[in-house]
């Protein structure tokens, strides 16, 4: 069996632990406790000193995107085995993975998964939830397990891989796909509220106005207040129509 695969299986319990490593998130050391917990666990499994940690060393500040933490673990193991000082790159990679992960997972993947789920909901509402969980977690679990493999395989040169697959652009691609499906959702919404009349100009006008108002106000007002203001306006319209 491939040497790296053997390590992957040996590290499996640590990788499963990595799902929970953010639980002590705090403003003192951010994810530091969790990362130290994972490193100590990995260190014990491979019987090797990992990074600047001793058994009693307090957890340092550490913060990255949670879906990328196993890349760091793989990298630490690889560099420790080859006697390199990985700590030098710890903060660099933590920041960089934070930037890449926040853009892709938090900014772009959530809206894309959401719009895809909405389309699934059209056919079978019950499947929407399962689709959401499965689609998002393919990336989540994929990054968690593949991340360790790749982090170990490439060591501190793992960024080459991200460069090769143009990872920094994935966010833009996902956003464009989200907008495409947003357009689709828009059309369906108009069809729904125009009561089966295929081209209802009043419905198109109304929805377009709401869309533009949302676009403009989001520059100045945050989402909850936009929602509250929208709900008040909609209530007023409803009451006026009722009179």
């Amino acid at each position, binding site marked *: 069996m491939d040497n790296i695969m053997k390590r992957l299986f040996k590290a499996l319990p640590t990788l499963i632990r990595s*799902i*929970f490593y*953010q*639980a*002590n*998130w*705090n*403003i*003192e*050391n951010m994810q530091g406790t*969790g990362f*130290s*917990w994972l490193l*100590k666990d990995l260190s*014990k499994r491979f019987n090797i000193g990992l990074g600047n940690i001793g058994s*009693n*060393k307090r*957890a340092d500040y550490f*913060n990255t995107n949670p879906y990328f933490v196993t890349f760091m673990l793989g990298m630490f193991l690889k560099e420790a085995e080859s006697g390199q000082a990985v700590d030098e790159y710890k903060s660099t990679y933590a920041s960089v993975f934070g930037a890449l992960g*926040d853009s892709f997972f938090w900014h772009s993947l*959530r*809206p894309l998964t*959401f719009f895809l789920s909405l389309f699934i909901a059209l056919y079978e*509402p*019950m499947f929407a*939830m399962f689709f*959401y*969980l499965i689609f*998002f*977690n393919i990336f989540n679990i994929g990054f968690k397990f593949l991340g360790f493999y790749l982090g170990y395989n490439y060591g501190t040169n793992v960024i080459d891989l991200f460069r090769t697959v143009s990872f920094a652009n994935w966010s*833009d691609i996902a*956003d*464009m796909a989200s*907008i*495409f*499906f*947003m357009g*689709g959702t*828009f*059309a*369906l*919404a108009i069809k729904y*509220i125009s009561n089966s009349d295929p081209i209802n100009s009043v419905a198109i006008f109304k929805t377009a106005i*709401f*869309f533009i*108002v*949302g676009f403009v106000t*989001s520059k100045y007002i945050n*989402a*909850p207040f*936009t*929602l*509250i203001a*929208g*709900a008040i306006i*909609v*209530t007023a319209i*409803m*009451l006026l129509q*009722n009179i």
Partner: protein
Amino acid sequence: MSLQQGILLFFLSGFASLDRVGINMMLSRPIVISSIIGITFDQILICILLGAIFEFIGMLEVPVGTVILKDDSFAGYSSSVLISLGAISHNNLSILLAIILVTLMIYPVTLTDIYCRKFNKLMITRAFNENKSNENSDSFLIRIGLLVSFIRGVIIYNLATLLIFLTLYNIDYFTKTEVSPIYYLVLLFILLMGCLFRFLNGELFIKLIFLVVGFAASWIIL
């Protein structure tokens, strides 16, 4: 509400809060929580629509650095529970009132999340001061973090929902209308879609092209 449904809500509120803090497997997304509640109480369509509306609150924020996101999971949970337990009627204005109240309640609920993080900080400072930092203490801190998040979800989500429930239940009678609110919920959904359109990356012109192409494709195909 049956005992099984009650147990499900107990665990759902706890796990949603837990997922936000420590797991990130998206069980806490409003559309997921609302769907689960919708399936349980046989109210799937309206629950999905409510979940979709509150989903935007989370999508329009990114948890960078020390930013703690507004608790949209609570919003999805609470609104779906309210409609499932009959605090608000389907053909009733109170559904919009519920949206307003739930959205306002997001702020104090998020505050409890902030206090949970402060509690984590307190725990870690104590461990530092007592010079207890080994694998066992890290593991203990992680477990405490998970437990506190779970308890926060169970207590805070349900308490806040109960408060809104009592408010709405008393005024529900006065706000009955014959107009279906679904139409207006769709309008709200589109309003928030406008916000998201700005939020997503890309040049405005290119975004518009994608929007129109998506619109046309959906219009023709579906």
